[in-house]
């Protein structure tokens, strides 16, 4: 038995050594985590499906290795959770939508398969906004997720279940997806570390598509080191995703302790403007001062097109979504409405009954932006502004190695606060969407609390495929804090 206090301080390396040294077994640990989930999760709502059979089978494999005195793989016996937008063979996968309520995937997402090959134990599938569309996890068709730090507040989104599970010690690390901030913003709301890698660093094979040119898979963990360990596990070329880059994967963990002295940290005034909560601002500015105290050089940079990022994002993302979600037609998988007389009647009734209001809103906006007569004015225009936003970062990264910003303009807001105002909800992503449009890596690291104990996140951006420097800066800050 692992005590409550022990569960809350467990790390990836701690689990591995405890199993190796026979202080516990992977199977006992899985039992303890399920006990905790059964007790805590009804008040939080992080899990949609528990994959007990699969978890215990994996734990048994790890225990056999330990019994035989074999070295455990890097994530050997580590209990993890997977956002329910990544398909898992034989384990229900819903994307938070009723349209996939009964969907049992016939194959595994590459990132999940790599986690399991590295010894991780998948406890279950984590709640999220329907098709990852949202910033609060209130758009889940099943149940909202509550922030473990204050249950009257949202955990952020769309990977709210993945952030909450780590924050509430119901998994040691989790995978989420980030299309406009869906890993970093909930990480900041729940007080954990969340990393969005470079576009192409992690295969998207088996990730249920929302917006293919913006979708990323990445880790949540309590520490930067553990996030680095998970990234090392899931990163690298996968022939099943032609956009996954053919570049070698550095040993991110080994790079963490290299000195940060002399590293140039950019600060852009565009990320400290109107709408930024004063407590968030104070906390993030103090974090930047801490980096300076560690020997980093703080350099002002300009990202002049930042104010155009949200409108650009909501055209590109919804246009791609309207196309990606055309596949939900009630023919090959998922929900089908009854009683339709013709095929087209069946399509409409199925999609009407299967999708929630936010998904319909985004399909409508995206279809409109792509429709004849509006394509140039909206979609093409947004693609051009995307180039300008990316150039901003190219320019800035000639001068600096990382850029420091707040992750979110506010701490976690109340459930229901923004649910009827889509535009206000979209603005929750104002500091995160730029990294998706440009494809650069970004991480959120806890950097303080508000007067009412709500976590605040420091966001760092890095150059394309330079997660090593990004993680090193984040780790140095975390250690010094």
């Amino acid at each position, binding site marked *: 038995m692992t005590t409550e206090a022990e569960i809350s301080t467990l790390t990836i390396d701690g689990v591995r050594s405890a199993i190796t040294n026979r202080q516990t077994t992977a199977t006992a640990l899985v039992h303890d985590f399920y006990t905790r989930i059964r007790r805590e999760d009804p008040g939080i709502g992080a899990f949609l499906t528990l994959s007990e059979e699969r978890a215990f089978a994996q734990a048994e494999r790890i225990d056999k290795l330990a019994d035989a005195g074999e070295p455990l793989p890097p994530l050997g016996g580590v209990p993890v959770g997977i956002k329910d937008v990544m398909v898992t063979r034989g384990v229900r996968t819903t994307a938070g939508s009723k349209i996939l309520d009964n969907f049992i995937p016939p194959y595994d997402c590459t990132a999940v398969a790599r986690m399991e090959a590295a010894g991780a134990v998948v406890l279950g599938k984590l709640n999220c906004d329907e098709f990852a569309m949202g910033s609060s996890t209130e758009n889940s068709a099943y149940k909202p997720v509550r922030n473990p730090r204050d249950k009257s507040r949202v955990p952020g989104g769309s990977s709210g279940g993945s952030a909450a599970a780590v924050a509430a010690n119901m998994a040691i690390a989790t995978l989420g997806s980030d299309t406009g901030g869906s890993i970093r913003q909930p990480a900041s709301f729940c007080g954990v570390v969340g990393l969005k890698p*470079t576009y192409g660093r992690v295969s998207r094979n088996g990730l249920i598509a929302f917006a293919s040119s913006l979708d990323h898979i990445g880790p949540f963990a309590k520490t930067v080191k553990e996030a680095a360990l998970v990234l090392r596990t899931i990163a690298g070329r996968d022939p099943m995703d032609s956009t996954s*880059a053919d570049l070698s994967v550095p040993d991110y963990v080994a790079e963490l302790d290299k000195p940060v002295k002399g590293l140039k940290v950019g600060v852009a005034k565009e990320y400290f403007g109107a709408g930024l909560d004063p407590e968030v601002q104070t906390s993030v500015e103090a974090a930047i001062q801490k980096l300076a105290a560690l020997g980093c050089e703080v350099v002002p940079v300009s990202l002049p097109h930042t104010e155009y990022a949200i409108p650009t994002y909501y055209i590109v993302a919804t246009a791609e979504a309207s196309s990606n979600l055309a596949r939900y037609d009630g023919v*090959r998988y998922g929900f089908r409405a009854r009683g339709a007389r013709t*095929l087209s*009647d069946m399509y409409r009734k199925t*999609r009407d009954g299967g999708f929630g209001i936010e998904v319909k809103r985004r399909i409508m*906006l995206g279809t409109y932006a792509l429709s004849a007569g509006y394509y140039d004015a909206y979609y093409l*225009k947004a693609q*051009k502004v995307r180039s300008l936003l990316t150039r901003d970062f190219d320019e800035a990264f000639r001068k600096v190695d990382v850029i420091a910003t707040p992750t979110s303009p506010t701490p976690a807001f109340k459930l229901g606060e923004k649910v009827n105002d889509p535009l206000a909800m979209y603005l929750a992503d104002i500091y995160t969407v730029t990294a998706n449009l440009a494809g650069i890596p970004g991480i959120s690291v806890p950097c303080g609390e508000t007067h009412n104990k709500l976590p605040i996140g420091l966001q760092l951006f890095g150059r*394309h495929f330079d997660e090593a420097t990004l993680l090193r800066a984040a780790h140095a800050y975390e250690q010094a804090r």
Partner: protein
Amino acid sequence: MKVDEKDVSYVADLANLELSDEERARMLRDLNSILGYIEHLNELDTDNVAPMAQVSDRYGVDEILQGTDRFAYASREDILNGLRKSLPHDEALQNAPETDETFLIVPKVIER
């Protein structure tokens, strides 16, 4: 107002959505509000800016590789069984709402 009721019907039609009266009213309001915000993009002169569809158009490969060779890794030989074997017939049909165990069954196909 950028969008009127007729546009909402037209777009819903393209997207294979039916939408209730209440949803139509909501879409009308929300689309106009969001598109109004998106109007800000017109403040920018983008006449000489190339559109960017994909991050991997620009990054993700060694810079010494030029032109079409840069993405040689992204294509592969056309092999008979692909990278992953095709699903067995029964597995491919297991999630379908209606089948006769050989084919997917759908309602009559009639142009509306």
